């Protein structure tokens, strides 16, 4: 069980680093168009982009709605994304694992 505890520590430190990236670095990240947007602009198909169906979502465009401070809004959105991706992957795999054990 010691190995398991040490994996817990590793995962905890890793998640803390991910949160630090989202809270400290992401608000200072470049806001220039990305590679695909640049090509779309240069080659005249950027205007084909349609509005996102979920553009009104409370975390749209990596900012939590209603948070006055831009950096904080981005950081909080990052924490939401980190929590959701971790939970979906780890939770989903745990369910898959249990199901495959039961059928085995």
């Amino acid at each position, binding site marked *: 069980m010691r190995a398991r505890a040490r994996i817990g520590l590793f995962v905890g430190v890793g998640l803390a680093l991910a*949160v630090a990236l*989202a809270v400290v670095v992401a608000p200072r990240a470049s806001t*220039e168009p990305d590679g695909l947007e*640049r090509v*779309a602009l240069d080659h005249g198909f950027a205007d084909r982009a349609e509005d996102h169906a979920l553009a009104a979502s409370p975390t749209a465009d990596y900012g939590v709605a209603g948070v006055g401070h831009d950096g904080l809004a981005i950081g909080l959105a990052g924490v939401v994304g980190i929590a959701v991706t971790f939970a979906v*992957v780890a939770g989903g795999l745990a369910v898959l694992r249990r199901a495959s054990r039961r059928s085995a």
Partner: protein
Amino acid sequence: MHAPDGFIDGPTSVALGLVAAGGVGVALRRAGQVLDDRQIPLAGLTSAFVFAGQMVAFPVAGGTSGHLLGGVLAAVLVGPWLGAVCVTVVVVVQALLFADGGLTALGLNVATMALVPALVGGPAFSGLRRLLPRGPSGVVTASGLAAGGAVVLSALAFTAAYAVGGTGTAPLAGVAAGMVGVHVLIGIGEGVITGLTVGAVLAARPDLVWGARHLAPGPAPAGAGATA
């Protein structure tokens, strides 16, 4: 490289949705066959870290930015099949929660940003790793090279979708050259970030790195037997 709705026409988007769903289904099944309990939290961390890494856009030439795609990073850490699943979850969460990447473009985006990098870049890593000196530096170098190449492959995958169902009227050759040109630069960033991250994990816990399982002494580590 998150395509919005509208860049690719409806029929092509539907076809890519089916391709992506099939690919993710295969990846999930293959990942499940070799899944070790230890890999469950590691896969969660991999997905969360790729999500956070993708928020950090870095500037490249000419008023353009790039960010980590993370498919090769995920493949090196947890294996290509599970890595593809991890990045797929990132792309789906980005579309559903953060309005990043169109809903009709979800199949395209999963294909270009999760499946191509993990399932083509992952095996490319394995091939390069065998050509390089055995040891952590070989793993780091192979990770970085495969990650950089995978970004260009992703750009070509988008270009292929544009060739089949692009709604723009720009000639294909120009779009292809533009996509490859800018993504070579972004790929350099991807390679550096991937190499540094793999190096850091190797320094801390080499036994947890799928791509370095050949270095582990003793019993087979998590995910051994997973083939690319």
